[in-house]
């Protein structure tokens, strides 16, 4: 009997078989493409002439993501079903929101032609967006566009589509808004869409607020739409930046009185005014209206950006600060350790 190779190396056999299959497939494809070889461009990729530089393709992702389709009527209808049903239930379950200050919007609601407005809330969590959508009353809720970070929400096609469809998101750059984006936003407002812009630019990294950037003020100046300052409390503990999973808790949304740009007021000044308003609302949410008014009048409202510490003392102060608000109210008393004061 003739033994050609050792039987232990039986894997060699399958590899060879695979190579053979590959060869056969490659040969088949080549046979198919053989006619087009003769045809060349435009069936095949063109070759670039010597000395020519091909400009890079304009990426359709990020700030250039097309979201106009999401504002069409069928998309609106689909979104309304999501908002009023599942989103509302989800927000209620995860954030148990208490929504106050709506009477400050009563005069705008009463007007025959309710104007578009720009909501300017502070930002601690992804939950803020669906929370805002649930909290904002009609007639603005159905005509709400959320300004969302282009690099976070619109970097992938699927993510961008989902954001546009369910949240009616619009891509906006965090730092410096491009001319194009701001023009488009301006047109949206002129068309009657209300905006939600988070002036901090992104979620708080450490639980304290960040400085307000001028996007909302700029747009309000250009379009004349009133800015509604909003303070959201408690979402940082529910699903803050860096948390892996959301943890159900309580939240509070406080709407402030509409702010209109004063004649010849610079964007910077208006932005400062908006930031002061949200700061005062924060004080009102955590203490009470009268204390907030008194401190606002004296200029001693506690700043949203927190104390001037670094490191552990900043975190420590954050815990004290959170006790004042909704995060300090436990939904269920499941304390396992005795409270030693």
């Amino acid at each position, binding site marked *: 009997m003739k033994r050609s190779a050792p039987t232990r190396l039986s894997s060699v056999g399958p590899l060879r078989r695979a190579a053979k299959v590959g060869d056969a497939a490659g040969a088949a494809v080549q046979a198919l493409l053989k006619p087009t070889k003769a045809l060349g461009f435009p069936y095949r990729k063109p070759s670039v002439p010597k000395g020519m530089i091909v400009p890079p393709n304009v990426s359709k992702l990020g700030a250039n993501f097309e979201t106009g389709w999401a504002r069409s009527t069928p998309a609106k209808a689909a979104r309304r079903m999501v908002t009023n049903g599942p989103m509302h239930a989800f927000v209620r379950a995860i954030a148990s929101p208490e929504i*106050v200050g709506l009477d400050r919007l009563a005069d705008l609601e009463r007007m025959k032609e309710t104007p578009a407005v720009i909501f300017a809330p502070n930002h601690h969590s992804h939950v803020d967006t669906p929370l805002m959508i649930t909290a904002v009353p009609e007639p603005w809720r159905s005509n709400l566009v959320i300004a969302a970070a282009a690099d976070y929400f619109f970097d992938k096609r699927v993510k961008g589509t989902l954001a546009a469809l369910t949240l009616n998101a619009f891509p906006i750059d965090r730092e410096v808004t491009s001319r194009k984006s701001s023009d488009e936003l301006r047109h949206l407002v002129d068309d009657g869409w209300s905006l939600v812009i988070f002036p901090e630019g992104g979620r708080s990294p450490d639980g304290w607020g960040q400085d307000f950037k001028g996007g909302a003020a700029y747009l309000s100046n250009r379009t004349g739409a009133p800015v509604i300052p909003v303070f959201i409390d408690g979402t940082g503990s529910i699903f803050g930046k860096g948390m892996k999973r959301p943890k159900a808790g309580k939240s509070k949304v406080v709407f402030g009185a509409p702010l209109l740009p004063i004649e010849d007021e610079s964007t910077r000044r208006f932005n400062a005014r908006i930031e002061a308003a949200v700061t005062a609302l924060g004080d009102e949410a955590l203490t009470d209206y009268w204390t907030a008014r008194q401190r606002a009048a004296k200029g001693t409202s506690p700043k949203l950006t927190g104390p001037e510490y670094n490191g552990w003392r900043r975190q420590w102060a954050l815990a004290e600060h959170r006790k004042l608000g909704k995060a300090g109210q436990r939904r269920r008393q499941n304390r396992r350790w005795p409270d030693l004061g």
Partner: protein
Amino acid sequence: MPRPGFVLEVDRSTPSIMFWRGENFSLEKLPAGRSRVIYPPEPLEAIKDIDGAIRHALLNPHDQDPLPTQLFPGMKLTIAFDDVSLPLPKMRRPDTRQRVIEAVLDLAAAAGVDDVHLIAALGLHRRMHEYELRHALGDRVYDSFHPRGMLYQHDAEDHDNLAIIGTTDHGEVLEINKRAAESDLIIYVNINSVSMDGGWKSITTGLASYRCLSHHHNPETLENTRSLMGHRHQSALHTSVWRMGKVLKDHGPKIFQIETTLNTDMFPAPFDFLSKREWEWTARDRATFLATTKSLNRTPIKLARKIFHNMEGPHQMTSVQAGDTDAVHKITLEKVYEQQLVDVVGQTDILTMGIPYVCPYNPDGVMNPILVMCMGLGYLFNMYRNKPLVREGGVIIMTHPCYRDFNPVHHPSYIDFFEQVLADTTSPAEMSRKWEKQYAEDEWYKHLYRTGNAYHGVHPFYAWYWGAHGLQHAGKVIIVGGDPATVRRLGFTPASTMDDAFEIASDVVGRDATITHLHAPALLVADVQ
């Protein structure tokens, strides 16, 4: 452009006219050729920028320095505000009081004022429930001041907290809330629904004691008040109030009076047809009317009351003025009359009116039979200037079911008043002499007024005295659709239908009597020549 009020001469083409009848309505046909219906003016336009108007008023008061200059740190500031008797129905949030008080508090915070007290100027009315205070002042103001004990309700029986300001030259003692009397500044926040209120009346009744009120809340004064809503110089009530106002001005604390007026847009859609002229009802209005009356016929009365009392009216501010009381009130009255005045020529033999489910003394409660009399002969009869709409000795016909039903929490002394006092006498003078003192001094009523939500023991008497002028003036009072035993206890004549009522009236005013129907609400004041 809102149309003014006018007088409709009823002819054969006039449709049936809508009458309020407690928690329901009815349509009555008035005889052609000798009836007229007085329709109120349509609601005036509300101010567009209400908060701006308030701020302007505070910074530009009449005959006084701007409010910020009157505020300084360390001062004792008291903000008194009208209680929940008005507006009727309650306003949508934010209530005028909330807007004005928040604007005032903003200025107070800017000036560094810490000692601020907010007092509900309710006089001898009932204490308000928490939800009523929250509705009037807003949650922000309530949550800031109530837990600190800086928001509370005037207690006219707390003798440690009353102070005598002085005595008028007629011997009337002005005794008001002590905290208010000792303040550096009292800011009064008023809503003027009717021309009776406001001016010096705000503080001299709202923050007063029984002793002080009894000087003008008595039958003699009210019989000589012609009328409550009309010419002030013919109103004994108001001349007494002015005397007290002078004492307040000369010897009392500084007062910054803020008065506001409301338009008469009282009913939310889809019930706005209630203030529309009947021949202008659209098909939808008629359908709504039929559906409403038919379902109300089947609804248990408790539920019907709940539905009506939960209604929030879209009425809004039409003017706001602040500063010196006399200067401010003059403007307020002009604005109220601008909204409510209707020119009418001549009196008639009969006056008809539909009594609604609510009057200033039963917000969120039951309209008991005494309040039916108060609303009809007190408020609606007095909606005139110059002369009453009905001639002296004429007949007044009202429609209301007049159930023998009382709210025992709000009106405990009214129950006893109906059972004991009215069983004895219906004459205001007689009951004042024989029964008033007992009710005013009863410990149990005082306890309920001070700690519960009850009107003061003496209040049913005041409700009855309010109609004293009407009682004296009319030859007969008939209530259509009312429970007969209850109507007789009130001293009136029961009738089942309007035609029966006219028949009974013909005994007094003859067969071809002329009839005026007061198409209220909305509110109107008839200027009768």
